[in-house]
């Protein structure tokens, strides 16, 4: 069983329109690197410097990774990784 990575509408241009793609890796960081190898360009939309972009939310099994170790959050087979851009703005 692989890791399932759910892709938001705005990033499906990188996945040929796929809503979910298989992932691999022991940490979120590795999953994102694997994602990048299959879908070049997607990593830059998720990562800025050493961390996740401020307005990108990532959840592993429904837990916001900001509370579980960020990019070092461990991931294993059967896990679900969900990527959701923040819905935010300001005047």
């Amino acid at each position: 069983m692989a890791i399932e990575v759910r892709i938001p509408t705005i990033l499906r241009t990188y996945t040929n329109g796929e809503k979910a793609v298989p992932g691999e890796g022991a940490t979120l960081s590795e999953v994102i690197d694997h994602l990048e190898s299959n879908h070049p360009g997607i990593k830059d939309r998720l990562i800025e410097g050493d961390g996740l972009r401020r307005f990108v939310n990532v959840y592993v099994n429904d837990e916001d990774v900001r509370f579980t170790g960020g990019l070092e959050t461990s991931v294993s087979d059967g896990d679900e990784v969900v990527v959701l851009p923040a819905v935010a703005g300001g005047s």
Partner: protein
Amino acid sequence: MLEIKQATYDAIVAHAKKDHPDEACGVVAGPEGSDRPERFIAMVNAATSPTFYEFDAADLLKLYKEMDARDEEPVIIYHSHTATEAYPSRTDVGLASEPNAHYVLVSTREHGNSDGPVELRSYRIIDGAVTEEDVSVVDELRSLA
């Protein structure tokens, strides 16, 4: 053009007035690809701010999982401006991430929490380009063909 039910329009305006002077935000979901804003969902502004809004991260996940399970998408994403006009700010444009959604803005600067007309306008925001569109308020959405 955005076609919206009077009841949904009124719900968005009422939410904006209630949360003034903070920004209010939410979505109106509808069947994927239908362009029909059917299900009004007020969201909590986690920023609790007069100049910023952000859906709470846990609420956001719950919302998207629920829409996914119902084959829905956000047809409208709305928020209020409390001291400026109902036009997307640079931040709004930079963070807009739903190319299929109608971005509805309400300005409560004239009447705040009180009765009185508010400005409600709708936009498409795609790749940083803002296009305003007409808003048609109807008693009921057209029935599905």
